[in-house]
């Protein structure tokens, strides 16, 4: 496999991290030196053959990539599209996120730092970070909103087993946004010894670009696999969007392919019209959150509004700045999928393919189901849709069991 991480030249962001009007650095000055250090280390690493070889070897031998591209025939028959599932759920730790943490953990080691901190919503990123920390012998502290520690107790246990300290965050809405604030505060105070291993393509420059580059192998692989399997590029690529790392990961290699439509599905929660959702692009406005300018769920005064999704992993009131730009430029289309639609798609995949998807990925599946008839009508044939199955649903069994009312009483 060639080096997935090395991005083509001449693409966004600019050298200050701007994707058009989005991105940048809106951070306390105390963090600028650390961001500059990270940026320099990252740029050096991306042209260092030893680093790239080590990263590739880890992805292959440890994470288990390239992940499969699986043609889901029974699901396809139900949806009316030829659905190819990018099986990131088969990666070690059960999600696409392992790619990003391995890249950042390698960088941490190169910068001579001994401690990593992370924020997590559903716990997938926390588990991935704790995993990489164990592998690289780094101290690991994971901030997690108290609400999320309750709904994702299994992942909390996994992180602790891997040797991480999990800190429940009790401020604000006690979810991912507040965990990110707390991690930022820790970083400001401990920046000499600590790398903040951000879990999605958000945050201040260079995080959105760096995280994208560490996960862009998803799309590089899927593009080639689709060509090998079908002899052509797909008609559409679908992914869920919370912060947006899995979506960028699979989109990025397809961005120059004008014939491939890119769809990001945001968490519509109880419906965007109800105000209880996490659809930052569909239902938010441009603003600054967590160090970057992007689309944000906010009120008129710029105060962040609480987000809602049945999926803790999508329950974030912002989105990575590159998605904001892809939306404004029209290259990608962002649509909301509500909780019920996601759960219906979750059930459908379980029953047709024997695959239990993460609730995040269920949004992408539901989205693919939604767009299939329209695509078929436009193309005059069965469309080929690549869906990023970004993670597996083990962590969500309790939530889904409660939703479907199938848990035996204790």
């Amino acid at each position: 496999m060639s080096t997935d991480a090395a991005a083509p030249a001449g693409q966004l962001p600019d050298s200050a991290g701007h994707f058009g009007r989005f991105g940048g650095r809106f951070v306390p000055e105390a963090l600028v030196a650390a961001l500059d250090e990270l940026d320099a280390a990252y740029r050096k690493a991306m042209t260092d053959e030893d680093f790239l070889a080590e990263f590739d070897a880890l992805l292959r031998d440890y994470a288990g990539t390239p992940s499969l591209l699986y043609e889901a025939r029974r699901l396809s028959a139900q949806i009316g599209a030829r659905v190819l599932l990018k099986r990131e759920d088969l990666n070690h730790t059960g999600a696409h996120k392992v790619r990003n943490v391995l890249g950042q953990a390698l960088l941490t080691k190169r910068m001579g730092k001994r401690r990593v901190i992370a924020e997590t919503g559903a716990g997938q990123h926390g588990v991935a970070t704790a995993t990489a920390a164990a592998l690289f012998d780094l101290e690991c502290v994971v901030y997690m909103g108290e609400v999320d520690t309750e709904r994702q107790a299994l992942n909390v246990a996994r992180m602790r087993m891997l040797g991480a300290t999990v800190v429940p965050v009790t401020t604000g809405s006690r979810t991912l946004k507040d965990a990110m604030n707390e991690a930022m505060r820790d970083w400001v105070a401990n920046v000499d010894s600590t790398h903040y291993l951000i879990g999605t393509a958000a945050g201040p420059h260079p995080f959105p670009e760096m995280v994208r580059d560490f996960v862009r192998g998803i799309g590089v692989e899927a593009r080639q696999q689709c060509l090998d399997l079908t002899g052509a590029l797909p008609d559409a690529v679908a992914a869920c969007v919370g912060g947006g790392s899995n979506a960028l990961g699979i989109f990025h290699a397809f961005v120059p392919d004008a014939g491939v439509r890119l769809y990001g599905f945001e968490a519509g929660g109880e419906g965007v019209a109800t105000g209880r959702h996490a659809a930052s692009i569909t239902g938010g406005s441009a603003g600054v959150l967590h160090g970057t300018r992007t689309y944000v769920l906010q009120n008129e005064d710029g105060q962040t509004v609480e987000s809602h999704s049945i999926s803790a992993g999508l329950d974030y009131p912002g989105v990575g700045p590159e998605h904001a730009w892809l939306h404004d430029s029209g290259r990608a289309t962002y649509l909301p999928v509500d909780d019920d639609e996601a759960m219906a798609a979750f059930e459908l995949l379980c029953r047709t393919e024997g695959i239990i998807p993460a609730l995040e990925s269920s949004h992408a599946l539901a989205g693919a189901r939604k767009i299939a008839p329209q695509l078929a009508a436009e193309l005059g044939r069965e469309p080929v849709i690549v869906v990023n199955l970004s993670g597996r649903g083990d962590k969500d069994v309790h939530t889904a069991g409660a939703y479907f009312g199938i848990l035996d009483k204790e």
Partner: protein
Amino acid sequence: MSRIGVAFDKARADGRAVLVGCMPAGFPTVEGSIAAMIAMVEAGVDVIEMEIPYSDPVMDGPVIQKASDIALAGGVRTADALRIVDTVAAATGAPVVTMTYWNPIEQYGVDSFARDLAAAGGTGLITPDLIPEEAGEWLAASEAHGLDRTFLVSPSSTDARLKMTAEHCRGFVYATAIMGVTGARSQTSEAAPILVSRLREVTDLPVGVGLGVGTGAQAGTVAGYADAVIVGSALIRCLLDAPDQAAGLTALRALSAELAEGVRNPAR
């Protein structure tokens, strides 16, 4: 001329540092915050730093965040904050400088905010998460409306960044004494005097030192090398910990007086 310069000139003539006291707008209520700011000035605080509460304050420690949460839960809005500036500036004659994270300003409208802040009698703005590189709109708006601009510098700032940041400041430069968030600490910073002396090499602007100062003795230590001593969490705690507003104001006056005494007895 910097709007806040008067306070620095006066203190310099007295041979002492300026005492800056922080309080969030709308904490515990709009009226309560006005009473608190007036009490602080009456007890010896020279300059009010009024924070516009924000939902995601990444530089703030638990005390300020709690106070901000209370203010936001009480429904305080940016427009209320501007009204508070107007009222406190008129009632005390003391300079009122505003501090807030960037998003509330952007949503209000950068130029509109500058216009309304100037009209309310505010002296300028401290921007904890806006660095000069991203501040194009604010540089223009603050020029247009004659407002001071205070960017932060940190012990981790390079010499080149200290110089660049100070060049974009007007009024004073805010030196964060420690690597960390707001909140009173038992010991004063060892990094702060070094940072201030590095700043003196690159700017003639007054330097204020904040983060971690909570007692008169600490204020005296910082006053020994800085032009302004900035105190937030310790003052806010007076109100947070008090059983009622009257007791809170009494404690606030007492601490303000202690700090004012501290800046008049610098440890040189």
